[in-house]
């Protein structure tokens, strides 16, 4: 029984690409955005957009008239489902490659399927460093890893000590106890320890918590100067709200690409969202750094409901689509081996990436991946670090709840 679902019209040349994201379940919000992001990129590639300044936008399709056709799949945030959906995409739907799949825990088994089938797996934003340490030959990841982000956090912390005389010594961690949170926290701890900071609080919590009282109390009791946070969605708002209720804040709070960078967070939390910091790969406020994004984002906004701009995670999925298409175009063939080699061999133009370029090291990590440290000020993501890209000085220490 085939579930082809699409018919190839006579004469039309189609490259099927599978998308694999958590469209339902606890990570559905992010997953749906990622899916929309890939769809946006595919639309730009398939049609002529002379005014969009992104490779392949100006031409129609690739490889002389091939159109990209997306086949969407939902892994619900579950590794077992992700693995079987990946197999279905390859075997049943006959997709050429898969883009996905947000959760690192799912990306691992799903990309395993691709690797042993000798097919390409493009990963946008899964952030576990382990993914690109597996020496896979057909796995490529666009985003920086938690490892790099953690080192960045430490760098910022040191910089604040240095430039701002902040006297930051102790670090606390709060993270959802999932594959992602745990991994991020481990990296954070490692980096902080290496730089001589003292870890005074290590607070994992079960995602989807009914309250975060004990978690925040524990933080408050240990009173770290800096917090590295990895909380998603509802948990992030709950965390911030709970800190407010307990009338406590660290001097600095830095967040992995998570709840912090959600484009609607400022709407949800209002002014309470301010003065938190985090790693950011993209935000509409970066327009001057990444001028090409605006036009693409217009399409993206139409595909999201409620309509939102790109965020650092979802935009990476569009990058993945663009880079893959560029590689196919450049390789001039659909041969997986050749395309994979081409991907490795070149440095790719990527106006949607903060670094502007994409290039892969062995294992598939994008070595040009970059993120900035931003701080929410007045509801906007202000760039605060590194200095050469900054547009604002950080507000530091965070303004206590009572004085806002």
């Amino acid at each position, binding site marked *: *029984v085939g579930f082809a679902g699409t018919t190839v019209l006579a004469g039309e040349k189609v490259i099927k690409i599978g998308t694999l994201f958590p469209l339902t379940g606890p990570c559905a919000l992010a997953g749906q955005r990622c899916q929309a992001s890939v769809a946006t990129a595919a639309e730009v590639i398939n049609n002529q957009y002379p005014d969009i300044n992104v490779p392949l936008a100006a031409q129609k399709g690739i490889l002389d008239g091939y159109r990209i056709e997306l086949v969407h799949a939902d892994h619900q945030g579950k590794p077992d489902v992700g693995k*079987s959906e990946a197999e279905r995409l390859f075997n049943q739907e006959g997709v050429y490659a898969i883009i996905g799949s947000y959760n690192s825990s799912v990306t691992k*088994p799903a990309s395993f399927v691709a690797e042993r089938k000798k097919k390409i797996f493009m990963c946008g934003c899964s952030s576990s460093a382990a993914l690109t340490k597996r020496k896979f030959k057909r796995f490529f990841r666009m985003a920086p890893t938690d490892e790099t982000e953690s080192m960045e956090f430490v760098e910022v912390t040191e910089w604040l000590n240095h430039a701002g005389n902040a006297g930051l010594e102790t670090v606390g961690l709060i993270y959802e106890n999932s594959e992602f949170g745990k991994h991020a926290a481990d990296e954070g701890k490692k980096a902080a320890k290496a730089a001589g900071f003292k870890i005074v609080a290590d607070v994992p919590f*079960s995602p989807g918590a009914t309250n975060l009282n004990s978690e925040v109390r524990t933080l408050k009791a240990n009173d770290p100067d800096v917090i590295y946070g990895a909380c998603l969605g509802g948990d992030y708002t709950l965390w911030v709200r709970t800190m407010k209720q307990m009338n406590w804040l660290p001097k600095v709070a830095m967040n992995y690409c998570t709840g912090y960078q959600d484009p609607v967070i400022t709407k949800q939390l209002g002014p309470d969202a301010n003065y938190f910091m985090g790693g950011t790969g993209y935000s509409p406020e970066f327009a001057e750094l990444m001028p090409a994004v605006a036009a693409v984002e217009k399409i993206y906004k139409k595909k999201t409901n409620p309509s939102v701009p790109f965020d650092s995670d979802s935009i990476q999925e569009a990058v993945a689509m663009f880079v893959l298409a560029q590689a196919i175009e450049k390789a001039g063939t659909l041969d997986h081996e050749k395309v994979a080699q081409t991907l490795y061999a070149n440095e790719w133009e990527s106006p949607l990436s903060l670094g502007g370029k994409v290039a892969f090291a062995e294992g598939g990590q994008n070595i040009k991946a970059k993120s900035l440290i931003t701080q929410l000020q007045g509801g906007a993501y202000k760039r605060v670090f590194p200095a050469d890209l900054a547009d604002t000085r950080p507000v530091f220490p965070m303004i206590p709840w009572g004085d806002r």
Partner: protein
Amino acid sequence: MQNMTIDKKDVFWCALVAVFALLPVVPGLITSTFTMHVLILILLFASMSQAWNILGGYCGQTSFGHSVFFGIGAYGAGMAVVTYELVPWPGVIIAAAVAAVVAVAISYPCFKLSGHYFAIATFAIVEIFNRLFMVWYWVGGALGLDYPLVDEGTLNFMWYESKNGYYYGALILFGIIFGVVRWIEKHRFGYYLRAVREGQETAESLGVDSTRIKLAAFGLSAFLTALCGGFYAQYNLRVDPPMVMSLEMAMKFVLITILGGIGTMAGPLLGAAVLIPLQEYTRALWGGLGGGVDLIVFGLLIVVVVIKQPMGIMGILRDLKKRFKRTSAKGGA
């Protein structure tokens, strides 16, 4: 009259044996790996639910805790391969034994509880185990265990391109577990199980040591469940607590059995044969739409089946049989 019923039963069993005899040649007939995948899952989930059925169906102790044993089995395989870089077999066997021991250990306090109190206790146990495994570094904690690329074959119980190996594995598992239950059903142990379910006091008045019976049922059920867990780890190449040791997984054991017909031999198979394809095909059809349409349809279908036939699919079959009998009786008269 008596002969007739025996004859009919024989026909039924012959038909069943014929179907099972055909099962091994299935891989030759099916080219789609997705269909194979669905078949494998049907066999696996039927086996899991049958293992659950020993305790939950025959013995009447509704456990929402079986994902603990399933998880232990999965961790056994996973740790053997990932942590100790061995073949999965010793891990699975040890884990199955551990699962049985854990079952016996937790059942001591739990068996004092009746009905829903027991059910909630088992579910509390899942939540506890899940959260402990999430922070237990030795078993991988929240990071879970990811399979490395190992050689294909029976020794590693790992196949990449073809699904036939997994299919036969699932079939053997299915054969073992259904065989065990079939044996139980016809022997003293099975009668005692049901007697304990229907009335513990009565059973004891007839000389049945209900505590021992329940312990045995729990241990056996856990052991078999763990075997299925090991298979699942090998099949999915990853083990982590939300995947194998969650309440959601535990619910599947219960749902499939209830849907098929609780406390019956064929129930788990029927339930899995309906629920799994429903789940997989609705997802294949509508999952990509993104709005959870597949899950809405899936949920609605469950509700409709229950409304139409609260006794499960076995109930539907029984109704059909009754109707058939009545019409044939009329015809005969």
